[in-house]
């Protein structure tokens, strides 16, 4: 089993305050990891540190066997950031232009989107059922439609690892179900590893096999079944809390 992400004793500080301390975990191919924790617990910071968007103050991160600083194969990672951080209402980009950005990691200088790339972008849009949004401005789309466009952008590079940061916040219950079914299918049929960040503890167990609970440090990392049996976790979360996390797990 190949290791896609390996974090070892990762530490992050903001203005002297510890945001993350001694975080160690690994993501292997075909993993579906639910990254959960309280608000301010460091979930997004952890992902941004792994991606090199936030500097670490200790420890190490390896991506696909490479030290993060030397890692260049960004097409292997599809990232769906938190929605609120992305959309500029003035930006005159079409859905197709935004999705085409996902092709860039495969490109060398000078980066050009070819007809083949465009055809593949269209194929991904069709797969996600958003072909009719092709020429629409991203700022004119609903939250759910935007989210599908950003998912298409993350998928268009054929990633081996998909990182989804609170992907369901803009989705209605029906869209949420179909969104997660699609992710689950990608994970099962194509072996794409998934890190799903959510604060929705009751929901994550329906899809993820593994749980990474972070509250500035790793509270738990392991399989869901072990989590649900763990007496240590039962005393940390209380029996009720542990039940809430576990009861929806298929």
């Amino acid at each position, binding site marked *: 089993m190949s290791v896609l992400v390996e974090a070892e004793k990762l530490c992050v500080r903001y203005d002297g305050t510890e945001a993350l301390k001694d975080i160690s975990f690994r993501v292997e191919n075909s993993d579906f990891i639910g990254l959960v924790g309280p608000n301010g617990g460091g979930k997004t910071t952890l992902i941004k540190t792994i991606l*090199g*968007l936030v500097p670490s103050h200790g420890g190490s991160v390896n991506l696909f066997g490479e030290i993060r600083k030397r890692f260049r194969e*960004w097409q292997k990672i599809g990232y769906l*950031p938190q929605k609120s951080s992305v959309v*500029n209402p003035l*930006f005159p980009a079409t859905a197709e232009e935004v999705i085409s950005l996902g092709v860039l990691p495969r490109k060398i*200088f000078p980066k*050009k989107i070819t007809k083949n790339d465009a055809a593949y972008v269209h194929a991904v849009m069709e797969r996600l059922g958003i072909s009719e949004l092709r020429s629409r*401005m991203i700022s004119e789309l609903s939250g759910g439609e935007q989210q599908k466009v950003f998912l298409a952008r993350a998928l268009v590079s054929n990633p081996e690892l998909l990182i989804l940061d609170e992907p369901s916040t803009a989705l209605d219950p029906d869209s949420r179900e179909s969104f997660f079914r699609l992710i689950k299918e990608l994970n099962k049929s194509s072996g794409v590893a998934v890190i799903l960040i959510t604060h929705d503890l009751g929901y994550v167990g329906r899809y993820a096999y593994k749980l990474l609970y972070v509250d500035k440090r790793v509270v738990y990392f392991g399989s869901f079944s072990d989590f649900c049996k763990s007496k240590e976790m039962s005393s940390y979360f209380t029996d009720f809390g542990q039940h809430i996390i576990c009861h929806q797990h298929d």
Partner: protein
Amino acid sequence: MEILDFLRYSFIQKAFIAGSFTAAACSVLGVFLVLRKMSLIGDGLSHVSFGALALGLFFGVYPFYIAAPVAVLGAYAILKITEKAKVYGDAAIGIVSAAGIAGGVILASISGGFNVDIFSYLFGNILSVSSAEVWLSVAISFVILLMLYFFYWDLFSAAFDGEYAATLGVKTNFVNTLLVCLTAVTVVLAVKTVGVMLVSALLILPAVTVLQAVKSFKAALLSAVIVSVTSVILGIVFALLFNLPAGAAIVMVNLLFFAIAVLYRRVV
């Protein structure tokens, strides 16, 4: 006098050529700057170029040769102050801008006055551009066209979401530096056209005008160039016909286009 009669004069031909190319360069850069909420960098850099032009005059060097590198340094300083100090981008622009103006005024004061009126740069004079400045405006437009050809998707991704762009392997620091350095050189050229006080209008107005109506990024770049060049041509024509200052006339035409675009958006 008919407008076609004016075209016989080489200084008017130069004004049209230099003005159009400078406007085209400014409008392309302006789209990126406006979308990245860096519109006022043009204002700050024009103030820096005022100080740098004074420096050039002080040492008796052709002002552009001093102003261009100093403005690039100013642009770099804005980026570094934002990145390294606990200062927001707009405040960093304010700091560098103030340093430029203060430097220019001090140089003007200690030199006891220049042969060229440094304060004429405040409002520019497109009708007095030299042949060298015409060639410079063509050259900078060509460089910006090359930048667009080679870095279009990098610039687009960094403007859309800089943080996300980094996860696509885009070297965002390089892209930012390229953008502000080209802006710095273009601003120095544009100071001659509309002056220090109005240069940011050439960067901001075409961009905000087309953003009212366009439906794609490529359309935004193309229409910004069309709006900007048309404004310069009409501005010069109005200036000649009604004996108005050309820089101010160009800005007023740009403003008119902006008002029409806002109305269009409200109606459609």
